[in-house]
């Protein structure tokens, strides 16, 4: 297939996942803000989220103070913010339009409907829209597109590039979300017994739509180590770093088999997976959660570059 087509599919998926992440950021931010005193202040909470979304500076330049309504505008509607839900959905749809014949009618329909509904939302007065409705709409929409992909797309290289995009973006997003909130997972004397740390942990899990799943997986008491394990090392958790790396590895292996040719991308993904599979949660805390996550984010970035060079750039030999 054309390298550009592969790139369009890959970015379609990345933007869909990114749109969903923006919506989750909005959800978690809104929840955290409901707590009277988090010990770090309302402002820090939003700041952390904007940093995770990679848009803190742009926000400050455009709006100044992080007022709830501005943050909502910025993360949902703002076209100046390349990570806003609206910007991501538009770009996902545009990537899809370019390669429409590579998508099934169902996938295109889901994508195009999302776009038409978004235009409708953009025309609706803000006062008539609740944040919950907007974030719910987003997660429903992204699930619909992904469901259509899984249910109808042919299992060929199109499918692999779509899923590479999904897994890579999700790995990056989970790591970033964890990284800006890593301190809540560190034992802090003043919170012990206050119930506050517990609350923050639950919010974090909620942001990953994983609070119920966590209980199914672990039961019993919520501890920092268990949360870290769940979101990083547990292959049952759909957003865990290891799950994402497993996904990338699987789709890269399929590509290598299909094309009868291995590239540096396969080796890189396999190395990452092997390393994660052997990692214990204690080692992560020993290395330092922040240090571990920073390293992981860099590795994912490097893998993205390798995928680009090996398949998408068009300079493949």
């Amino acid at each position, binding site marked *: 297939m*054309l*390298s550009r087509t592969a790139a369009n599919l890959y970015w379609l998926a990345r933007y869909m996942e990114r749109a969903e992440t923006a919506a989750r950021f909005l959800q978690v931010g809104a929840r955290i803000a409901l707590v009277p005193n988090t010990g770090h202040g309302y402002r820090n909470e939003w700041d952390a989220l904007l940093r995770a979304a990679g848009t803190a500076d742009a926000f400050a330049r455009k709006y100044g103070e992080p007022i709830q309504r501005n943050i909502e505008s910025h993360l949902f509607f703002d076209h100046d913010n390349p990570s806003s839900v609206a910007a991501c959905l538009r770009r996902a749809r545009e990537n899809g339009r370019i390669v429409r014949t590579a998508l099934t009618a169902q996938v295109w329909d889901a994508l195009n409907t999302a776009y038409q509904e978004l235009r409708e939302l953009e025309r609706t007065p803000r006062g008539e829209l609740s944040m919950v409705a907007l974030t719910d709409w987003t997660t429903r929409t992204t699930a619909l597109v992904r469901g259509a992909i899984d249910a109808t797309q042919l299992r060929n290289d199109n499918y692999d590039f779509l899923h590479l995009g999904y897994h890579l973006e999700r790995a990056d997003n989970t790591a970033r979300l964890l990284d800006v909130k890593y301190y809540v997972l560190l034992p802090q004397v003043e919170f012990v017994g206050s119930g506050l740390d517990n609350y923050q942990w639950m919010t974090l899990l909620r942001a990953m739509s994983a609070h119920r799943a966590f209980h199914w997986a672990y039961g019993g008491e919520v501890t920092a180590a268990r949360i870290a394990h769940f979101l990083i090392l547990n292959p049952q958790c759909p957003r865990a770093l290891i799950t994402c790396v497993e996904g990338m590895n699987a789709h890269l292996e399929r590509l290598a088999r299909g094309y009868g040719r291995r590239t540096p991308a396969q080796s890189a993904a396999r190395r990452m997976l092997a390393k994660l599979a052997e990692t214990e949660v204690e080692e992560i805390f020993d290395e330092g959660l922040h240090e571990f996550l920073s390293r992981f984010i860099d590795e994912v970035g490097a893998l993205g570059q390798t995928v680009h060079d090996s398949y998408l750039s068009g300079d493949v030999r």
Partner: protein
Amino acid sequence: MTDFFNEMFDSGAVRVPYARLRDWMEEMPAELRSLKQAEAEALFRRIGITFAVYGEGGDPDRLIPFDMFPRVFSHDEWRRLERGIKQRARALNAFLSDVYDRGEIVRAGRIPDRLVYLNEAYEKPVAGIRPPKGVYSHIVGIDLVRTGPDQFYVLEDNCRTPSGVSYMLENREIMMRMFPELFRANRIEPVEGYPELLRRTLASVAPEKCRGEPTVVILTPGHFNSAYYEHSFLADLMGVELVEGQDLFVEGEHVWMRTTRGPERVDVIYRRIDDPFLDPLCFRPDSMLGIPGLMDVYRSGGVTIASAPGAGVADDKAIYCFVPEMVRFYLGEEPILENVPTWQCARHDDLKYVLEHLPELVVKEVHGSGGYGMLVGPKATKEQIEAFRLKLLDQPSNYIAQPTLALSTVPTFVEEGVAPRHVDLRPYCLVGERIELVPGGLTRVALTEGSLVVNSSQGGGVKDTWVLAE
């Protein structure tokens, strides 16, 4: 000017090709009709063919109105048209191979040399280069109008990249979905073979250096182009890649496509971008759409470009007048299809006649398209005519004039029921190793009562075009 040929009703009687449509038309309740019309529109929107035809530009998300009343040709009517169209396509290609070689028709004094060699569309860089099988224009779109049972005129030729064929295919698809009973009652020749025929035609003109099964691609200016849908639609139905300039590169003696498995050789490029943008090394240096070095590969026999660069010199409105001459000169035959009588304002006597008869004539720009910049004498006000007279006097060579033709009508669904509306026809003739024509084409209809302008930018719609089997 009052008597228009109605293709369905001839002096009160229903003409044979339309016989089975009468009951259908009369028995369809109004509610069902509007229901069907809405259904058709929804289908079009869903499929997403919302693009402009004929390079008219405009809003890419705009739907062109579809009229459900089909336009019908009998088997015999079509056979004659087919012979005429193929004859013309042969003559146009013969002309192109001639003027890029020895120019015998010019040497013989049948066409003025400057009209050919100083034409904007004559490309010096391809002179002396013979494209595979000598074919320059692989898809010839010939615009026809009808004025009587046996009288057809060629309005213009399109030798470069005639668009709109996806309408021909989609109109049929939608009619078959909505009115299957019509297709059971009438024996209608299918058009769905067109994409495969096009692919085979293009494969048949693979370059000398091609070994094995040729790789065909469609080259689009990109997804912002108003005809992008047509490009991706055709690529999909033909089973070939839709590429942009950036997806191709030149190395060694070939053109290559950038794929996820490495470079893949490309043998035939069906391009939907204009000559000046094909190759910045050869044509416009600022072109971002083209492939640097493409023309050298083409000229050394490494790739086929369809239509061949320079093919436009055959469909220029000033050259148009000489097409009947081409038929006689190259084929030794009499033209089956007539040209519309045309006055060339560049000629003194012609200009004089035109200026004296402006209220009866249609005056067009030589290089214009899309129905803009033209004067329709009988529909124009005195002021408009006078204003046009000044433009004409200023740059006479920029204009040609033709009599206002009594375009035939076909019944069309309108607000009040069914009423006659004027139509034209564009069939698509494929030229490769063989010359082929699918039985059908694109019928454009002027939806406004009395209007003779069928361009979609000016209130035109489209119809399914039927050719009845023997």
